[in-house]
């Protein structure tokens, strides 16, 4: 029976690697490349131990703990500890995303598209598809572990030794594989690929929030979040085995459950049945805006909730900052003494820029949906009716614009509510809103880049995600790891005045707005004059 269920698994594993080879190489280069270049630059950035200690204390506050996880060893803040504190959690999230995407693509997507049916018509066991995918992920995650261990270990940076580096790699590998098994479970419940990845990403997001909150208030409870297992290994400090063990046991249990559920269900079905839809189109559907909205309704509301929670999380952590900094002599020196503003106020600008970068993700997604629809040939069906391309375009564009407005308000509301719950009357709503609204021109600028690319070179729209990643990287980590200042000049977010510390300056806002409008108009003109593309 065992042999029958898993017949042909080896062949499928080879086939999976054949399909994925480019993806895998891309991920490996990106992950290891960033880790190595980071770790390598530390000795030149922080030459003395005193500098590292200052850094440790800068990072060891509630806001940073929420974002990066706790410092594993505050007393011995070596290069290794510093490196893993800054890099590990975010890299682990990236590895988790990679695992979710790979597993969903090879299992539920193949099943949904009918490719699994084709595979199953060959002498292949019932569970071979799921098993081959999970074994492929196991191998990939082991490779991630080994590559990080070897690459980081051989850099020869003081305290970044082989032993710690292999634990660092293992921290990424176990989180990756845990999320591979979580996804394999979601596949059994959900009937289509969108819901499967949605559920898996939901669990990932929840894990991040859970560990952010528990790391600050109740570190023991953060064991409940699989993401915490990465930094609980404490690479370069204590190199603990326990989290590795827990994740292996957890993954094996979950995989057994997934295989069992998979053997029970019919092909193409999930344990959570899909809802039935409407038999007739509602009135709102029958307009470009209505259509654009209906297609993305779930995403639209989900992102509004995400923005609100994001605001809540930020609000709850950064109120403590003032007290924390006052108690700490070393850090007190970092704050300009003559500043009339509280430290909290100085953080608002940074927080708002991060909130805005976050909000840009869905804004771009809603716009780029138009290109996705075009690629799949569905736009053709619409344009062949009496509906012009421009009208359709404005439908999708409007969703993005409406979202910008709602997202600003909602995230500020979340921030305001949680901040004032912790410390009454600490922050003014109007001031927060103003601090957030000034970022709108930078969001619209990136949106207008999107419009321009859709019109001019739609195949390159993927570049926008890379650019947005760059913005986040430079704005969020730029000061912390002391990147050169010019790197910030390439992001629109840097030109925005940081309220309340800085005065509102009209010039940058006006220039960004004019650029936004310019790129948008240019993009629309190109879009109107170009052919529809399909199967691109």
């Amino acid at each position, binding site marked *: 029976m065992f042999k029958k269920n898993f017949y042909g698994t080896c062949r499928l594993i080879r086939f999976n690697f054949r*399909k994925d080879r480019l993806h895998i190489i891309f991920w490996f280069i990106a992950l290891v490349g960033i880790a190595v270049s980071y770790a390598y630059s530390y000795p030149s950035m922080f030459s003395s131990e005193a500098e590292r200690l200052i850094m440790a204390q800068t990072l060891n506050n509630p806001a940073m703990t929420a974002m990066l996880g706790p410092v594993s060893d505050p007393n011995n803040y070596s290069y290794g500890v510093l490196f893993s504190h800054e890099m590990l959690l975010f890299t682990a999230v990236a590895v988790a995303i990679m695992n979710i995407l790979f597993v969903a693509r090879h299992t539920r997507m193949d099943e949904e598209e009918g490719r699994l049916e*084709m595979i*199953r*018509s*060959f002498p292949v066991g019932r569970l071979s598809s799921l098993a081959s995918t999970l074994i492929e992920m196991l191998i990939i995650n082991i490779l991630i572990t080994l590559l990080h261990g070897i690459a980081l270990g051989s850099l020869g940076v003081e305290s970044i030794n082989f032993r710690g580096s292999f634990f660092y790699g293992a921290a990424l590998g176990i989180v990756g594989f845990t999320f591979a098994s979580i996804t394999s479970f979601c596949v059994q419940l959900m009937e289509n690929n969108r819901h499967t990845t949605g559920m898996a990403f939901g669990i990932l997001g929840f894990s991040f929030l859970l560990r952010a909150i528990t790391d600050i208030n109740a570190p023991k409870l953060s064991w409940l979040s699989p993401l915490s297992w990465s930094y609980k290994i404490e690479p370069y400090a204590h190199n603990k085995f326990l989290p590795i063990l827990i994740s292996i046991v957890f993954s094996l249990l979950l995989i057994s459950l997934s295989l069992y559920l998979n053997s029970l269900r*019919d092909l193409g079905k999930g344990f959570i049945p899909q809802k039935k839809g409407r038999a007739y189109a509602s009135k709102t559907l029958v307009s470009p805006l209505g259509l654009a909205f209906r297609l993305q309704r779930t995403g639209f509301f989900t992102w509004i909730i995400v923005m609100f929670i994001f605001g809540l999380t930020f609000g709850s952590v950064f109120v403590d900052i003032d007290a924390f900094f006052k108690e700490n002599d070393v850090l007190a020196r970092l704050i300009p003494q003559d500043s009339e503003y509280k430290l909290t106020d100085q953080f608002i600008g940074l927080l708002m820029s991060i909130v805005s970068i976050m909000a840009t993700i869905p804004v771009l997604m809603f716009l780029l949906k138009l290109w996705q629809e075009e690629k799949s040939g569905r736009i053709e069906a619409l344009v062949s009716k009496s509906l012009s391309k421009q009208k359709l375009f404005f439908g999708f564009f409007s969703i993005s614009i409406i979202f910008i407005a709602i997202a600003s308000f909602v995230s500020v509301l979340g921030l305001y509510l949680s901040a004032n719950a912790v410390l009454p009357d600490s922050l003014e709503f109007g001031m927060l809103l103003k601090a957030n609204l000034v970022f709108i021109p930078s969001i619209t600028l990136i949106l207008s880049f999107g419009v321009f690319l859709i019109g001019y070179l739609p195949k390159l729209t993927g570049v926008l995600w890379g650019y947005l990643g760059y913005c986040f990287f430079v704005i969020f980590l730029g000061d912390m790891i002391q990147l050169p200042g010019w790197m910030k000049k390439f992001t629109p977010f840097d030109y925005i005045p940081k309220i309340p510390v800085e005065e509102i300056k009209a010039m940058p806002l006006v220039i960004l707005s004019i650029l936004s409008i310019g790129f948008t108009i240019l993009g629309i003109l190109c879009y109107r004059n170009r052919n529809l593309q399909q199967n691109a």
Partner: protein
Amino acid sequence: MNVVEVKNVSKKFGKFTALHKIDLSVKKGEVFGFIGPNGAGKSTTIRILLGILKPNSGYAKLFGMDAWKDAVEIHKRISYVPGDVNLWPNLTGGEIIDLFMQLQGSNNKEKRDVLIQKFDLDPTKKCRTYSKGNRQKVALIAAFASDADLYILDEPTSGLDPLMERIFQECVEEIKEQGKSVLLSSHILSEVERLCDRVAIIREGNIIETGSINQLRHLTQTIFKVETVKEVRDLDKLDGINDLLVEGKHLSFQVDNENIENIMAYLVPYGIKKIDSTPPTLEELFMRHYEISSDEKEV
């Protein structure tokens, strides 16, 4: 010996009954047609044969082995082409043909290349650029190049042009000559009529008719066009006459096959100048079956 043997198979999806106690058999060396409207249960039946779905009752056997339990063994001897072929967008057609053949356990490069040429497929293109017809060709080439004893084809020509459809028919005939069996589910009735030895008609999860095409014709009516010397009277009062059209001495009508004798006898005295009879096409058979069933439904 029956290559396919389905007995009493029912399949439910939740409350919905997709198949209702169906029986089906395909003999060795025979091309068996499987026809029915959308949603009648053709693909469900085929998935049960492939061991992808488990029947709620009854059994399905291929080569005498159980379709669900012995799926792996059975699949070494079959080839399957689905109606809606989806392929991995980042692989080429040639790569997928090779993969499919390897998975099935065949390795006949020569046959593969001949078929690629016959079907006029460019195997170097990525699958994302293929049209529906080209994706179907990929699956058909892989299936026909494989060495199987039973070919299960689920509406395999729905995206092919007439030229390719003819090549498909040639391939099926070639297989048949080699003594292999084919289960062909199709909408294109002329294709079924040309290729199939026996046919089963399925509707709403029930097999409503099985038999050779000739047998099926006996169950129904023949169309007559007659020209007589004298005008015929009161023909409509006879039993078994349908769709009677009278234009002077020109008549056209349909007759239940069992009443042909009576009607001919009645017509002879009027002097038959010209007579033209056509057996019903499969399409008419098909439509008639549906009409009957929907009439029953209304009652």
